[in-house]
């Protein structure tokens, strides 16, 4: 009798599918989401998270994206990776700021990705029983956390680990060559204006630190601020790095009479990130931004480094993209 019970239990347990292990993730608000199996219809309204999903190879689950994916600046990169995007077939029920709740619901998603501060939209969707994962990236740890969470959500845990390992390895490879003393002073310029920069507690600050530089605004606690030009002149940065800027180029700064006394301008060490997609600080691609800054900051140490090759290698590893 005992044997029959044990054999029956054993058979029952064998029949129950093995992957009934639930998925549990905590989003950046601190809310816990759980799924019995990976969601299959994902609406992702954050472009940087979207690129992470492509890196994981899980793009087939995407049924809705944010409208800015179709913008000039990133469109061609996504179009190369996904025919649906090239034909503009994926619906865009929202953007970085505005979410059309009805359109999201019409797509029947089982997971929606939004910025964690979009409280009203999140509440509307959760009220209707749709799980929302809120995102907020402040530094590189947050980037890793996001990729791990996305990996768990899409069942691509292994790939997520692989991506993180690769990123950390690449960063180490470069940081070995940066000097410990004599770090160059760097002023970072956002595209909104010459005097818009970031202080401590920002992705930019961390970026500069990792790359072996000193943020001239590093003593100011604000994440994003407008500084007085006199201060910039007094801080006298050795390098000026511009975020990708459609309205201004380094040569505009080099010709600006107000900046002539700055070391960076005198030595013509003003650089601009060529492309927002390639160095998106909210994704693992921030490693490329780090590499670029390191090469500009330590030209001798990185003389033989070919940034173009680094870029292509990175794109191949992250997205499986073949060079054109």
């Amino acid at each position: 009798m005992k044997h029959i019970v044990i054999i029956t239990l054993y058979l029952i347990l064998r029949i129950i599918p093995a992957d009934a292990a639930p998925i549990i993730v905590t989003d950046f608000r601190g809310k816990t989401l759980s799924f019995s199996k990976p969601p299959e219809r994902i609406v992702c309204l954050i472009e940087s998270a979207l690129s992470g999903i492509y890196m994981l190879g899980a793009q087939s689950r995407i049924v809705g994206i944010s409208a800015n994916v179709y913008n000039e600046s990133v469109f061609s990169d996504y179009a190369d990776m996904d025919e649906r995007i090239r034909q503009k077939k994926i619906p865009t029920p929202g953007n970085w700021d505005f979410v059309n709740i009805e359109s999201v619901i019409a797509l029947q998603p089982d997971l929606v990705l939004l910025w964690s501060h979009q409280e009203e939209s999140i509440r509307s969707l959760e009220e209707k029983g749709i799980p929302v994962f809120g995102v907020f990236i402040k530094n590189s740890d947050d980037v890793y956390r996001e990729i791990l969470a996305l990996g768990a959500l899409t069942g691509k845990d292994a790939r997520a680990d692989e991506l993180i390992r690769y990123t950390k390895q690449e960063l180490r490879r470069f940081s070995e060559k940066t000097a410990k003393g004599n770090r160059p002073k760097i002023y970072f310029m956002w595209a909104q204006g010459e005097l818009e920069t970031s202080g401590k507690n920002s992705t930019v600050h961390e970026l500069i630190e990792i790359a072996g530089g000193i943020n001239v605004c590093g003593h100011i606690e604000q994440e994003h601020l407008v500084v007085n030009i006199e201060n910039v002149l007094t801080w006298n940065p050795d390098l000026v790095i511009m975020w990708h800027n459609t309205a201004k180029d380094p040569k505009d700064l080099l010709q600006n009479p107000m900046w002539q006394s700055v070391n960076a301008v005198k030595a013509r060490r003003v650089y601009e990130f060529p492309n927002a997609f390639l160095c998106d600080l909210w994704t693992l691609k921030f490693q490329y931004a780090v590499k670029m800054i390191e090469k500009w900051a330590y030209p001798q140490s990185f003389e033989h480094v070919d940034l173009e090759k680094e870029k292509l290698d990175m794109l191949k590893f992250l997205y499986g993209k073949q060079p054109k």
Partner: protein
Amino acid sequence: MKRYILYLLPIPVLVLSVFIGPSGAVDSRQILIWLAKTIFSYHQDARINDTLIRAIIWDVRIPRILLAFLVGGALSSSGNALQSMFRNPLVCPYILGLSSGAAFGAALALATSRIPVQLSAFVFGILAVGISFFLARTKKSVSVVTMVLSGIVVSGIFTALLTIVQFMTDPFKLQTIVHWTMGNLHHAGWEKLRSSSLPIIAGMIGMFLLRWRMNVLSLGDDETRAVGLNPEIEKILILIPATLAASASVAAAGVIGLVGLVIPHTIRMMIGPDNTHSLPICFTFGGSFLLIVDNFSRTVASFEIPIGIFTTLIGGPFFIFLLKRLKVGWDI
């Protein structure tokens, strides 16, 4: 006596402002040595950082000081002129939609990145005023009440258009637009000063020449006509330079509030309503006022705070203090 002080006020304010800046930049001693070196060739061998001081004093501070002064003076004088024209001391230069039009023009330029921002703001500011004025015209006369009403309507329309632009643009551009509107003297340089000083000075000259006629006009349309001036023509003649100067100011420095409303009152309280004196003194006092406020905003924090905040926080209580101390002296 009071008048002479007010006329001469700009000189010490302008000079002292050169020495004011964010702490951590150059100090006064170094500036004095640099000035002695450059102007009088004393202390040739003094060890100071010439390039840095020159960059800060000549490239940064002086244009910003001059621009703050011009803008403050222009907005105050425009306010004075329009208050006479509208026979109403509650009027400010933005009453005919100027600020909404300029803000929309700037937003459009910033969002599309195809037209120069300052020019766009200037043109749309003037356009808004022109539309308000022509909407209010009936046959031969322009009633001031109708003008105010059409100003409100035009203002509303441009604000709605501005909202549309803000709505459709990405977060970075939106931030730039909002920052522009709040007031942006911190971008002042010789280039901006050059492009804005021409319309501002032209407007000032126009208003200056017409200042006695403002006395006549402010007595009323019938009273003006009876003594031989055409009130409709006088209104246009005053509106044009006032709008030129105010629009150029907003285009250069963003929307700075309260100055155009409060300074003319303050001057009137101090020296009476005779425009032959109050108009030029509005320029000198208003210019000095904005300059002092900007000096304050430059030094108070390590990051730039839009000047519009300070004009209200400082100007407001100052005005209330004056209201209580002096006699107000008008009947409405």
